[in-house]
């Protein structure tokens, strides 16, 4: 009864969101269109030039960052818009809702990032990964960090009146440290550095995830209730 949150309930909230997403395509279509259009624009812009390692690593994360913004924000806004926030209040404790939503964002962002990375590898020939271990770990840790941060930001903006514009404004300072470290680490993967030398970066990413999740858990009660 005094558990932090209920795993079964959080999983069911995740399943509800997933089934709902399959039926309404609320976030998925927006995400896929966003990834495709940005990548197409980048392709035109790059044309015949070969971007440097720094730039191609940066661009990858810009695509991931902005598509995450356009998709993740929906998780709470969709409940707010449909008026089902109160329904959730009446059937689960706040922390359960938070972890259910976090799980949903995590899975959604993973799927989207796999799609983005595969597309990126095909379309940008100069993007050649030399250390796959670093790259995969960076994508993994970057994804969980990004989902944790987007979940709490989404919860905050769902309550505000200026939903659309507030999201990038609020998320930029929160996500900047994470973005800097994942870009650096992606660069290491392109340069072919040994994984042992990238461990420090991974520790920062893990710490980021833990801190953001802990702060979100504490903050969510206040954010969730009117």
């Amino acid at each position, binding site marked *: 009864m005094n558990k932090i949150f209920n795993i079964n309930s959080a999983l069911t909230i995740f399943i509800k969101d997933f*089934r709902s997403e399959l039926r309404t395509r609320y976030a998925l279509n927006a995400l896929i269109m966003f990834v495709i259009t940005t990548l197409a624009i980048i392709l035109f812009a790059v044309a015949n030039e070969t971007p440097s390692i720094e730039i191609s690593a940066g661009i990858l994360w810009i695509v991931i960052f902005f598509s995450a913004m356009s998709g993740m924000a929906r998780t709470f806004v969709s409940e707010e818009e449909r008026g089902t926030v109160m329904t959730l209040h009446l059937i689960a404790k706040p922390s359960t809702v938070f972890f259910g939503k976090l799980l949903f964002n995590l899975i959604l962002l993973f799927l989207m990032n796999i799609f983005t990375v595969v597309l990126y590898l095909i379309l940008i020939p100069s993007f050649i990964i030399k250390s796959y271990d670093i790259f995969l770990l960076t994508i993994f840790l970057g994804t969980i960090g990004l989902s944790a941060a987007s979940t709490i930001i989404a919860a905050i903006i769902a309550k505000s009146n200026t939903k659309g514009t507030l999201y990038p404004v609020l998320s930029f300072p929160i996500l900047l440290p994470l973005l800097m470290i994942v870009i650096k680490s992606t660069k290491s993967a392109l340069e072919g550095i040994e994984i042992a030398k990238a461990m420090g970066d991974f520790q920062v990413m893990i710490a980021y995830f833990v801190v953001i999740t802990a702060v979100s858990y504490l903050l969510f009660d206040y954010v969730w209730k009117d």
Partner: protein
Amino acid sequence: MDIKLEVQNIKKIFNGRKIFSDINFQLENKSALAITGRNGSGKSTLVKILAGVLSPTNGQVDFYLNGKSIDLQNRYQYFGFVAPYLQMYDEFTAMENLELFARIRNIEVDKDYIDLLLKRVNLYERKDSYVREYSSGMKQRLKYAFALLHKPPLLILDEPRSNLDAEGISVVYQIIQEQKQSGCVVVATNDSEDIQFCNQEIDLNQFRNIAK
């Protein structure tokens, strides 16, 4: 089950405007409370505060089960709530909604009981239709199944008869009477007929607790 709801000095201010203050009352087993008042007097605001979905500006609501205080976070297990502004998930069927709610509540999904509830509110034939295809009265009926799913000791009803036909209203009155036998019920309404089963009343027009 022995329950007690204790409301002390509740005050609510919205954007600098005071809706009500100094609301005090106690609700114990086998009683029914009516919350009355004109439109905008704060009936819905008060029931939301009782249900724990809205925070009061001042004051507190305590809930005791068999003498043990239940903290705010866990009260959802003991409360049932019906209101016109409550929404079910449109993209799921009535059955799917109720099954999801049972799972999220982490209670056993008792199909027989769900069927029974759906028959009771006369939606059984339409249990596999999407809620988006429901009329507003049907949605209101579904909310009663939602509210009774976990057999709550306290049932809170805001405008219990909204959108319902005569048959629906009589089912609601039965539910109110049964709930009064097994636990407590709070009814927020404008309609004098809805409060015929209540033994306590808060009239928000007067901001005070009248003994009836």
